[in-house]
């Protein structure tokens, strides 16, 4: 694409594809052809490019129109039907189609963000290596191989202060030194892309949007540590990511960025791709190693750590995808630059996946130190449907729920840890007053229970025991002493479990008890669910005083159990009610108990 080219960038991340991205791309190609603008025709060529996720998935399909000399315009919720309009009105005649163009709040979404790691996502074609190189790709590898010794690279990464982005937050440079120092010729580098946290799709977007930057990051790490073989372990539930990584690996190999004598230097690095097979626990380092070795993904005790005895008993270094994606940045811009972003102990940026009851659901990259309030309200746009904020869940099933009182907490590893939550991999799920915190705890615990590998007693049986107690509480069979029992058991499971899954599984329970204890007590003592989410504790009776006779409930009831007429208070017929709670979800006045 030349500087004079006209660009149509269509979001083809998973959400984009799911929203019809492919159809949109085809429509653009057809329309442009019709107008004679496809390929190298006439004075300017026009390229329709599939790009990665730019973040605001709720507005997919997002399309950027880039006309040289003019402002870049983004269209949201694009469908194949409106493409002809955009092509004719905007591309041919330079007149922006205001109705479909992104509104001001779309740009507000980006204001507080610092898209460094994600800078190419949304701009380059993830399946085109030349596009990556054209935007500065693989220059960090060249710097490293030409101008730096392995120790220098380790020093630089240490200086940058970057901490693991997978959830543990261990300083990456320090981790490198352990593996680097371990004796032995054969060492493995592993990229952990088994992003299993429900609600997290940061790693997915990085790999789908810019797979080459992951390869580049791995090359830098491999060179620094002394690894000649590496694995990308990607979960099978990301077929698009796997497809793109496979292509990137092939292209990189052809371009002498992988294989033997990379870029003519005395450095070999062979990269393999391993697909996960559907086990969340394989995101845990040692379980991942077991899976690569072809066994059940059951974690192994540490010490000895993988840096000393890892894959097939050889020293291995495992880094998360997002962490790896930071390495080219650090080399290109320098550790000092990286240091300048973030807080004293948490440097750089972090990618978060905003989801739940939030207006701007999607992917964001913000500097460490930004507060939760800023993240949720400024970047995230706040709570939709005029609901009130209740809690924010950070760190997926290993993390915790924080209440409104803690919204001023800065987002960095240590500040979050002191609240009882963790940074985690970056999942941020916002909840409003219609979410029951006991139910949330139960939901997360069911997840970890289902994904527990089953090896150690505290996690296998302990989390089930906790879940059974929570089940009882949510159906109105809570007992006096249950809360203390949960807390005691939770603490013991935390300190006696074999791996991170068990050690953090009790966190949602502990934080919800810590910050929302009254809600538990309501469930147990009064057999009531204040948020009206636990179906067994809801009477499904309309409160005449609070009902504004709007009829919203009547419209959404699937079984016709609600009697309502204009200007009448609604009434629920319990014999027809299936307790689906659609009425409660849609009642803007919380009038149903």
């Amino acid at each position: 694409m030349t500087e004079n080219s006209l660009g149509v960038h269509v979001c083809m991340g998973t959400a984009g594809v799911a929203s019809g991205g492919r159809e949109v791309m085809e429509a653009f190609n057809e329309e442009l052809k019709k107008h004679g603008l496809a390929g190298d025709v006439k004075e300017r060529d026009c390229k329709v490019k599939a790009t990665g996720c730019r973040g605001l998935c709720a507005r997919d399909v997002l399309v950027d129109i880039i006309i040289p000399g003019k402002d870049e315009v983004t269209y949201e919720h694009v469908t194949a039907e409106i493409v002809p309009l955009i092509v004719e009105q905007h591309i041919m005649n330079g007149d922006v189609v205001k109705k479909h163009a992104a509104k001001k709040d779309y740009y507000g979404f980006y204001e507080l963000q610092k898209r460094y790691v994600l800078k190419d996502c949304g701009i380059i074609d993830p399946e085109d290596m030349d596009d990556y190189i054209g935007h500065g790709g693989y220059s960090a590898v060249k710097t490293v191989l030409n101008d730096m010794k392995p120790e220098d690279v380790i020093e630089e990464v240490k200086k940058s202060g970057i901490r693991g982005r997978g959830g543990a937050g261990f300083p990456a440079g320090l981790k490198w030194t352990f593996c680097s120092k371990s004796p032995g010729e054969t060492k493995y580098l592993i990229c952990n892309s088994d992003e299993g946290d429900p609600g997290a799709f940061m790693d997915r977007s990085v790999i789908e949007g810019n797979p080459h930057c992951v390869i580049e990051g791995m090359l830098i790490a491999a060179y620094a540590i002394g690894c000649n073989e590496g694995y990308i372990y990607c979960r099978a539930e990301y077929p698009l990511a796997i497809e793109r990584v496979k292509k990137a690996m092939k292209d990189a190999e052809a371009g002498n960025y992988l294989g033997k004598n990379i870029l003519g230097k005395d450095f070999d690095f062979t990269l393999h791709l391993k697909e996960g097979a559907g086990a969340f626990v394989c995101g845990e380092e040692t379980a991942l190693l077991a899976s690569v070795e072809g066994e059940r993904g059951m974690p192994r005790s540490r010490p000895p750590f993988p840096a000393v005895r890892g894959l097939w008993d050889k020293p291995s270094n495992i880094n998360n995808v997002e962490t790896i994606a930071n390495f080219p940045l650090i080399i290109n811009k320098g550790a000092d630059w990286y240091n300048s972003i973030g807080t004293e102990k948490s440097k750089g940026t972090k990618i978060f996946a905003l989801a739940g009851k939030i207006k701007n659901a999607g992917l964001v990259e913000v500097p460490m130190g930004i507060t939760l309030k800023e993240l949720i309200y400024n970047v995230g746009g706040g709570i939709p449907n005029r609901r009130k904020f209740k809690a924010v869940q950070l760190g997926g099933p290993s993390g915790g729920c924080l209440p409104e009182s803690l919204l001023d907490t800065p987002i960095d590893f240590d500040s979050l840890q002191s609240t009882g939550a963790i940074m985690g991999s970056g999942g941020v799920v916002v909840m409003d007053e219609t979410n029951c915190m006991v139910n949330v705890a139960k939901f997360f615990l069911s997840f970890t229970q289902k994904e527990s590998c089953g090896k150690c007693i505290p996690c296998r049986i302990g989390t089930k025991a906790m879940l059974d107690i929570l089940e009882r509480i949510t159906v109105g069979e809570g007992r006096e002493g249950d809360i203390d029992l949960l807390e005691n058991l939770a603490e013991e499971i935390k300190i006696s479990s074999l791996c991170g899954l068990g050690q953090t599984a009790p966190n949602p329970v502990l934080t919800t008890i810590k910050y929302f204890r009254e809600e538990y007590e309501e469930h147990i003592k009064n057999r009531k669910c204040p948020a009206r989410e636990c179906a067994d504790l809801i009477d499904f009776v309309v409160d005449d005083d609070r009902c504004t006779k709007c009829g919203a409930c009547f419209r959404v009831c699937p079984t016709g159990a609600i009697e309502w007429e204009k200007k009448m208070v609604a009434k629920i017929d319990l014999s027809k009610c299936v307790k689906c709670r659609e009425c409660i979800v849609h009642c803007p006045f919380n009038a149903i108990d």
Partner: protein
Amino acid sequence: MGNEALKDKTKLISDSDAEKVDVKQVDVICEPFKGLSGSTIPILQKVQDHYGYLSRDIVERIAENMNKSAHQIYGVLTFYSQFHTSPRGKYVIRVCRGTACHVKGSLRISQIVAEEFNISNGETSEDLKFTLEEVSCIGACGMAPVIMVNDKTYGNLTPEEARKILIGYAKKDV
């Protein structure tokens, strides 16, 4: 070999004789992996891609090829959600039960699938047309709640919209 154990061996052998499934493709798939370590999962994935599911004869054939015990291979495949030992429906409905989707009501959608096709999580309808799979996260949280039917993703669904989509599939190839 003991007499009691003999009975089981007999069953094994005459089963594979009578089995309609042609296991020779297993040999073809396993061949390039011979001598490589850590190939259990890739082999299982490729074999399942071909046959649709992993039956007893297929697992035993894999074990033979890999010079491993079938019990060990079975132990590995039952650990991972991806592998199935019984045939699946023509349409695999994946209802995302991740946090974002849960918070946006995906449980109700799962119930609707159960209502329409009389199957619960992990089950396949008797006519082998539909399989319900509750998954932990599809990664399309921006469009929660999300379901997938085979390769197609549907997002931003209300329960009734979901029901309509499902009925649409039910009507297909009738």
